[in-house]
Structure formats: structure tokens, C-alpha cells
């Protein structure tokens, strides 16, 4: 039985990688006494798959993982048992059954992010500035790829970009992006915007949260 799980990962858990997270889930399933399917081969591992990787240091409130289990547990039961044994900071929000052949990667279309950053001094009329930024025909950035740096246009990937609020020197921004093979992440948007406004955002201290992954 294949279960799809929407989860959050916050606090210190934001410093663990996708691979680490896979081990965290595997070990939690064992502590929760859940029988899961194992891959064949010399070093059997559970059949877990994730949505698009999240950068180290980012939190999430709506990522997904799929897992194949052998027990006949209801999704609710799976969720409850897991939440009882998962470390603090990671939590399954929702769990449901999907077909064995159903692949998570084929469903992920968009992602929403909240960026929290410190400002150098004051920044007025942020929303106007964002609009000016967004009204450009093209937003060309340099993206690191396996073959070196490449110029790409960010514009078509940005579905929405807006200002939320400012609070004690921290600014909150909302970004919605298309997810596709090789699409740039939200930090490219922030960095391009920061350049556009003349380096007003402290890119050393920002916090990134994936608010949600949107499945079709």
C-alpha cells in the first residue's frame, strides 16, 4: 500500500538534508512498529520518495513523501503512529492512499515560499518596487548547472511575488514558482530582486520556508 504524506519540517530539522530525512523517517517507522517494504539488493532500504529537494537550512510546511508499507494501516493510523515517534520539528500533516504506480514527481507543479529577511535600513514602497521588478520583460540571471554557469530568464517561472509585511526589521515576502526540471529556486528571485533594489536585503540571514507544494 502506497501512502502519500504531507509533512512539515521546522526548527533545527531544517539543517538536515533529504538523505538524512529519509533515515529519520525510516527509523521512525521502525520505532512506530510499522512494517514497510524494502528494496531488493545488498543494502535494503525503505521505498520512500520525496518531492523536489529543499535547500539545507529551509523549513517546509507542505512537502510530501511517498512510502510503501506492508501493514494494512489506515492512513490516519499511520500518521498518528508516526507523529508519536518522529523527532520534534517534523510532523505529518496529512496522509492518504494512492495507487502503487502513482508517482509523486509527476504531480508536483508549483511551490509557494515565504522568505523572511533582514533589511539594511528602511525600504519604502516595497510592493511598488516588486511590481516594477516584475514588469520587466526578462529577468536574466546566472544559474549554476552541472556544466557551469548559464544565463536563464527567471520571469516565466515566477507565478506570483508579493510583499507581506515588515516586522522589527524583518521583511516577509511571498513567492510562487513553477516547478519543472531545472527550474530555479526562490533564492534566485530574492537575489535578483535585491540587486534590482540596490542591495537592501541582508542575504546572509534570511530564512526560507516552503509554505506549500501544489500538486495537480
Amino acid at each position: 500500500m502506497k501512502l502519500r504524506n504531507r509533512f512539515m519540517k521546522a526548527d533545527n530539522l531544517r539543517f538536515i538534508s533529504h538523505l538524512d530525512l529519509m533515515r529519520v523517517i525510516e527509523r521512525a517507522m521502525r520505532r512506530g512498529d510499522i512494517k514497510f517494504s524494502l528494496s531488493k539488493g545488498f543494502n535494503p532500504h525503505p521505498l520512500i520518495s520525496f518531492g523536489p529537494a529543499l535547500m539545507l537550512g529551509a523549513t517546509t510546511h507542505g512537502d510530501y513523501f511517498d512510502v510503501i508499507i506492508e501493514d494494512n494501516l489506515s492512513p490516519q493510523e499511520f500518521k498518528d503512529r508516526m507523529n508519536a515517534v518522529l523527532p520534534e520539528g517534523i510532523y505529518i500533516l496529512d496522509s492518504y492512499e494512492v495507487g502503487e504506480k502513482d508517482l509523486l514527481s509527476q504531480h508536483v507543479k508549483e511551490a509557494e515560499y515565504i522568505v523572511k529577511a533582514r533589511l539594511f535600513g528602511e525600504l519604502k514602497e516595497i510592493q511598488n518596487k516588486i511590481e516594477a521588478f516584475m514588469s520587466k520583460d526578462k529577468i536574466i540571471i546566472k544559474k549554476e548547472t552541472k556544466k557551469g554557469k548559464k544565463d536563464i530568464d527567471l520571469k516565466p517561472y515566477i507565478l506570483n511575488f508579493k510583499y507581506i509585511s515588515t516586522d522589527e526589521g524583518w521583511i516577509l515576502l511571498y513567492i510562487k514558482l513553477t516547478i519543472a526540471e531545472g527550474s530555479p529556486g526562490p533564492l534566485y528571485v530574492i537575489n535578483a530582486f535585491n540587486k534590482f533594489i540596490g542591495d537592501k536585503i541582508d542575504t546572509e540571514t534570511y530564512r526560507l520556508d516552503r509554505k506549500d507544494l501544489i500538486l495537480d
Partner: protein
Amino acid sequence: MYSIKDKIENILMKVAKPARYTGGEINSIIKNTKDFKIRFAFAFPDIYEIGMSHLGMKILYYLINERSDTYCERVFAPWVDMENMMRECDIPLFTLETKTPLKEMDIIGFTLQYELSYTNILNMLNLSGIPIRRIERDFSPLIIAGGPCGYNPAPLSDVVDLFVIGEGEEVINEILDLYADWKDRGFNKEKFLKEATKIQGVYVPSFYKEEYNEDGTVKGIFPLVEGVPSVIKKRIVKNLDKSYFPAKQIVPYINIVHDRIMLEVFRGCTRGCRFCQAGMIYRPVREKSREGLLELADKLIKTTGYEEISLTSLSTCDYSKIEELIHDLIEKYKERGIGIALPSTRIDAFSVNLLKEIQKVRKTGLTLAPEAGTQRLRDVINKGVSEEDLLNSTKEAFKAGWNTVKLYFMIGLPTETMEDVAGIAYLAHKVADVYKEVRGNTKNLKITVSTSTFVPKPFTPFQWFGQEKIDLIIEKQNLLKNMLKGKIFRYSFHEPHISFLEAVISKGDRRVGQAIVKAWEKGCKFDSWRDYFKFDVWMDAFEEEGINPYFYANKERDFYETFPWDIIDCGVKKDYLIREYNKAMEGKLTNDCRLNCTGCGIKELDKGVVCFEAKK
């Protein structure tokens, strides 16, 4: 104002592997810090991934936290990037659990696993804002230390307030009781330490003075005050089955060196290899019962969720019911994909059938440790393994499908000749021939030959030897490099200058301790890490302190000489060690003492010390 927690948060994004510093792992213990009389920091002077792999810490962490008056937290050496950020942002070294600065602890307990971590201890104290030298500190925090390197406490005698000699779980509660008592009464450092010396296994270096002969050797270690013991007897757990072993282990988020359940099956070793310090200081052998182990394994799987159990000890295959134990564990857990590992085991003539069983669940490597290249030299070191055994077990393994082998050796052993060294390469070639015989060719075969450099260690029959000169070691390594060419072989070896430093400190006295402080002041740390090891700086430090390091590392010693560690009684008697030394020179073997007692003296250490042999 930023709190220390905020400050840490802000720098974590800028360092490699931030999860080293966050804590919060499954089974780590969070208590309300206000409720405790004693705040204890268990300090491992190396990075998280190494420290977290250490069994002693796993035991003591829970044992101390069982106390209702004490909170034990962990601290590791921050990696260089983190240290730099911390110094830049004024963040003192903090505990993982509650991010409390180390300075606010009552006791900091360092575990001494290898001599090359000593500069890290100094660095950790300094990063905490705590003076390095004990005479510059007031009472708190109290710096204590234990672990195998504590058997020669001399080099750290000006740093550490109190050494624990022997097995920590046996002593620590007595020390904490006394500490709690003194905390109620108001402290007096002298008096507390004085009373602590009444606890067997406690060594307080400030009460002793080291004196020297004209030739630079040690004259003796003499008490400065009345009433302190003239010899410190080690402490041992008499019944390992009944002693404390936690049913939990912390499960880290990131990969550590030994990322698995560590199930200790017995302590000690009966083989009597003459170079091996662990084999001597952890005597006698004490086994745990199979039933107890199975029960514990079950609990540990439930509480950790780990996918692998490693059966740890100095030579796990010597466990008297090893086959049954492995069989039971595999049967019980294979369905769930939980594998068994024998990490510290150098599989000698170990039954390949058992390995095949283990392999069914999880792939394991084939590791053999002949230690020396010729039979003559293997007899000198009392490594009771023959070439025939070795080739037979590799043959069986190749038939069963293995195609990688790791072979461990030591170079620079007493009496070693170039022929013995060449023997290492010949042996590796013979293993390759065996493969060819079994498979027809050597395609896919990989043989890794590793050599470490012999370091004479206190409390071993070889403690009187000097280490071989660096040049000669390099020559031997080059010989092997040349003889192990080709796609099949990979040769790896220890940096000889690092092994040299290890020898200096291993056999060091209090004067060497001064040089360690000097070397740290000049920027030495992480000395066991090749990239950070600064040989020239160390040599400058020795020179500035007027110390000749070759005197410590390379000089042969006299049986009548007093060693700085003679203040410690590890149970194994000097006359036994001398006997073994002489037998080594004659190339005579000593049997495994499970067959019959070879009279090492450990039984006289204490009432109720029982060896494996006596129990049968």
C-alpha cells in the same frame, strides 16, 4: 540583544553540517536546567560524528542522567569553520542540549580516547573562557577526565583536576555524590579533592610531584600531601551483565562514523597481543549473557529504530556463544531488514559461514588483520594467526562471492626487518593468487592493504621499546608502495610524523604536557587530521619547552626505569609484562588465556575480580 541561542542560529547557515551543533536528536535528554544541583558536560574532544560513535559516552550519558540531582549534556569540538564563527561572534562553547555555556557547568568530563585529541581539549576550554591550567582556575567548573589514555595521566596533569582510572560507570556516581555533598556544604577545592582521593580509581594530580633523574628519566611520582594513595588502582565493573547499560541510544540526524546500535557483548580481551594496550587495560574479560543481549537488542531497536546492530568488543568473534547469538539476531530481524555488523572485528580464522549468514541481510566487507607480514614477526607480537588460516578463509570468502578484502598490518614492530615488511606485500599477492585460483582471473578483485605505525603504549609488553625512526618508517612505506602496484592493490598508510607525535605523548611525562600547551598556543589542534597536523609547529613547541621529543618516542627503556604511569595500577603486573617482553624476543607464543591462565595478575587487583577462565 541577541541571546546565545539567536547568535548560534545566525551562524549555523554559514557552517558545514550545522546539524552537528543543534542537538534535539531522538533520545537526547532535555531537562529543566533550574532543577539540578549538578550540571555536567560530557565532553568529547573531537567532532560530533566521531564523538557520537563512541560507546562510552552512550553509557555514561544515560547513567548520569538517571540521577535526580544531575543533568548531563554533551559537547564536542566544533569544526574549524564553526570555531572561527564562534570566536568572531563571541559565542562561548555551549552544550548541545540547552545551549548553556560550558563555563556555567559544575563539572566538565573529558573522555580521553586518543592522545592526539589533547590539543582539542585545550582549545575547547579556551573557547569556553576557562583557563587551561588548573592552577589558574578556581573551583568551578571542575575538569575531570577518563578513558584509555588516562592510564598515563602525566601529560594532562597540569590541566585536569581529577582523573578517573578505569571504567567510568563504576566510579562516576561516587564522585557525583561527593560533589553534591560539597555543594551543600559550600566548596573548598582542596578539601573536596582530598576527599575524592579516597575513592578507588581517582587520581588527583595536584597532590603529586614528578621528579627526574639527571639523565632525564623519571625518578618517581611522589605524594605532596599526606594520606593520598601512593598507587591508584583502576576500577572495574565486576559483573558486566548486571552493570548499567542503557536501553536507549541517541539517534543522530546526520551520518556519524558508527551510525548503528552498539551492543557491547563483552569487555576485555584474552588474546594477549603484545602491542595492544586495550587488550591489557580492559582485562579481565567479562561477557554478557546471550539472553541479556537479545533482550537489550530488542529494546534498543524499539527505542532507536536503527537498521543495524553492531556487536562490539575488542574481538567479538571470541564471544563464547557468538554463532548462536548471530543466528538468533538474524532470524529475529532479517524480515525487517535489520542487519548485524562486526565492526571492530578483524576476522581472522573466523568462520566464513557466519559471514555468509550476515551477508544475507546486509553486505559486509571482509577485513583481516594479520598485523605482521611474516610468521616470525607474528610470533613476536603474539598474533596467533597463520598464513594458512588466512588464505583458507579468504578462499572460502572468494568462493562465496566476496571480491574485496582489507588487510591490516603494523609496521615498525620490534625486531622487524625489511624482509618482514616485504612479507606484507607477498601476503597480499598470495591472496590475489588465491582469488585467481578460485575465479580464474583477478578481474573485480580489490585488495586494500593498510599499515599503521607501531606506537609503544603504556601497560603493554612493548612499552620499553622505542618507536622506529621516521626515516626508516618512510623507507618501509615506500617499499610497500612499490611492491603493491597495479589495479588490484590499494595501499594506505598512516602519516609517520603523526604516529611519532602519538608516541611522544603516549609515553610522555608532565614536561611533555607543557609542550602540549605550547603547541596549542601556537595554533595546533585536530592533530590526528592530516590537513591540520603541523609537525613543524610541534617541533618548535618542544624546542621552546626544552624537550627532546626523540627521547620520549624513540629511546629504548630499561626494565628498572620508572615510568610516569607507574603511579597507576592497571591490574596487569609489570613482571608479567616483562615476561611477555622476553618471550617476544625469543619468538615464543603465549596462549589465549581462556585456555589456561597465563598469570597476568589482574585477579589480585581487587576482591571479587573473576576472569572468564575461573568462571567455567
